[in-house]
């Protein structure tokens, strides 16, 4: 647990951080966000005393950080920065094992630990341990940076815009990986970013900072649903309703889906159906292959004639184009909905078999809270 009590940082007459008090619970991901120059990085750096607070107290598990020897304090806190800062003359495994080395851990144990961490972050140790930083891609280097921060198994991680220098596609991959790691490791994380989508994705709580003061400290969902003032409203943007959908996972909104198998399409088409349901069509092994579409009769007269029977035909679909996974966000579900022009999206398991569906009215209802 990290606790700030009335912490300020002044440079001469300028106040970078103005009497901040906050609390990050153990195992929580707390994201500091705000416009550039707002003091979020300064706040972060006071935890491992890369900067010293001008006044106020910062404690970790009740112990004042100012009372600990600074090297010892830093070795017990994982630190990840945007520019990674891998030591260019050391191999990947020596880079990862640097904090254990400073702690006097012997070489064999260190290298074993480095291999474990490479496994953990999903890089093959045999392939990566002897590489040098200049042989790594940006995303790989950043992962090694995270592995290095975790090497001494510190309870706390400080991350200063760790994915800021990575391209958007890779950033999302890294965020997903971070979430997976965090679910397994349960570190106490302080994370600085200026990317609201990133904050919403990974945060348990978000602290919005402006001019060195905390404007709002809440869950991502609350910040989007109930911005405290105009500044927060402007910061989260006009599309906050859309962004807020990122906070909700598809698995909580799955409804039963109607489905028939491919052989039954003809029979179904000849039956009586008064409403227009979404009916998914399964192929062999239960894999989604399409959706039924009602064909209205060609001539207007026929269409108007009472008791005209609807007929259906199947439109082929590619599961990977239309489906979402239970872990996907509702924002993704909505984007699939709009992309396909349908009223529901299928929720698929790994084999592309239908688990259920997400319906447009449910998404609309979710947004009522904001609008």
């Amino acid at each position, binding site marked *: 647990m990290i606790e700030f009590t009335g912490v300020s940082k002044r440079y001469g007459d300028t106040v970078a951080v103005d009497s901040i008090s906050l609390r990050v619970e153990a195992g929580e991901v707390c994201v500091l966000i705000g416009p550039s120059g707002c003091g979020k990085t300064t706040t972060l750096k006071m935890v*491992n005393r*890369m900067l010293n607070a001008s006044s106020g107290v910062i404690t970790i598990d009740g112990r004042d950080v100012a009372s600990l020897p*600074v*090297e*010892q*304090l*830093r*070795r017990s806190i994982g*630190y990840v*920065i945007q*520019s*990674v*800062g*891998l*030591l*260019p*003359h*050391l*191999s990947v495994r020596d880079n990862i094992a*640097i*904090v254990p080395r*400073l702690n006097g851990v012997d070489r064999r144990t260190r290298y074993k630990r480095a291999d474990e961490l490479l496994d953990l972050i999903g890089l093959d140790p045999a392939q990566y341990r002897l590489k*040098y*930083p*200049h042989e790594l891609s940006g995303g790989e280097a950043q992962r090694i*940076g995270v592995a*290095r921060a975790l090497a001494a198994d510190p309870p706390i991680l400080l991350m200063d815009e760790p994915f800021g220098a990575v391209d958007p596609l890779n950033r999302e991959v890294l965020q997903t990986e971070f979430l997976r790691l965090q679910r397994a490791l349960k570190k106490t994380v302080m994370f600085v970013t200026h990317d609201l989508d990133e904050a919403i994705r990974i945060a348990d709580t978000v602290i919005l900072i402006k001019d060195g003061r905390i404007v709002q400290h809440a869950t991502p969902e609350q910040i989007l649903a109930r911005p405290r003032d105009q500044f927060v409203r402007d910061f989260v943007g006009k599309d906050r309703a859309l962004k807020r959908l990122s906070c909700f996972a598809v698995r909580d909104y799955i409804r039963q889906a109607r489905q028939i198998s491919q052989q039954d399409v003809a029979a179904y088409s000849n039956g009586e159906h008064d409403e227009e349901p979404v009916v998914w069509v399964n192929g062999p092994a239960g894999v989604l292959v399409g959706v039924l579409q009602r064909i209205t009769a060609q001539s207007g007269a026929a269409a108007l004639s009472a008791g005209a029977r609807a007929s259906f035909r199947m439109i082929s679909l590619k599961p990977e184009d239309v489906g979402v996974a239970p872990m996907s966000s509702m924002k993704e579900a909505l984007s699939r909905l709009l992309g396909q022009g349908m009223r529901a999206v299928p929720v698929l398991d790994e084999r592309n078999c239908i688990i259920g569906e997400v319906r447009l009215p449910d998404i609309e209802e979710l947004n009522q809270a904001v609008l």
Partner: protein
Amino acid sequence: MGGVALLLPFIEFKPNRVAEGEAFHLWSIGLTWEPWLLAAIVLTALLLGLSGEGPRVRAGKVAVGIALFAATLPAALRAGLILVTDQTPFGRVGPVSGFWVLVLATFLIVEGSLRTARYSPLLKGAIRALPPTIVILALATGGLDSFAMVQEYVNRADRFSQELVTHLRLAAGAVLAAVTAGVPLGLLAWKRRAFERPVFAAVNTIQTVPSLALFGLMIAPLALLSRQFPLLRAMGVQGIGTAPALIALTLYALLPIVRNTYTSLSVIPDAVIEAGSGMGMNRYQLLRLVEAPLSIPIILSGIRTSVVQAIGNTTVAALIGAGGLGVFVFQGLGQAAPDLIVMGVIPIIVLAVLVDRGLAVLIALVTPAGLRKDPP
């Protein structure tokens, strides 16, 4: 090129030291089989040059290059023996264009093939050491005694070793002093922004002064100092001689060292330092694990530049009475004896090359593997 070389005058004969020389062609000296051997080797080299790429062709080229050298030198030796007879006790021979072009051809063939070859550094070094070894063997066996340059040396053997030592001491002393002053200056320029400009302005200006002028500039103030302070005079400080030479050489040696020290520190990314201290390195660990490994190779290469420069510049020091191999060069100039000049210059070049290669190996050894872009 080898073909042209065979047609150029190969060797020159002088009845005595200052007489006009007479040039001989390879074919007109009276050699028996040597010209034909040389021609055969040159032809082989030509064929190899036309037969494209590949490790075998490359190995062939290296072998032919070495063979060319190994055949050229004995040919010159034999020519010397034939031309210098008992009737001409002061006679001497000197290699001319044909010989030098053949040596150049050797160099080009061997170096050109080695550059792209994937041999181990050790093997490359051994191959490069072969031609000098052949020369040393020839010298040791007395085969080169009829050569003018060697005769000049034999006449001054004692003086030569004396001046060689002086030369080395001057250059080494200057570089040592420059390292002692230059590394701290570079550090200072980097740590304190205020010092950066004046330090670089000073060392850059020194570098632009011609060496002879700098030596000249030393004379007046040092002479004055020595007259004013008897203690200094007792220590050997005078307007001419060792003291001004050392000072001037040191000043020259400063720039590469100061500049590289400064650069070596400024190219360490801030992020690396931040990450290092953020992980809990103390000042000493940061120096040992981060700063030193990253900067030492760059500082060393500055020293390498300095040393090579100093060895060259020390030649000029002879002019203000500091001695060194320059003595022979200027004597030779004064006496219009080109062989004497060459005798002074060749050891200087050999020294510079040796020191340069030695330091290059050292730098390669201290450069961490992660910083090496390609093997040396």
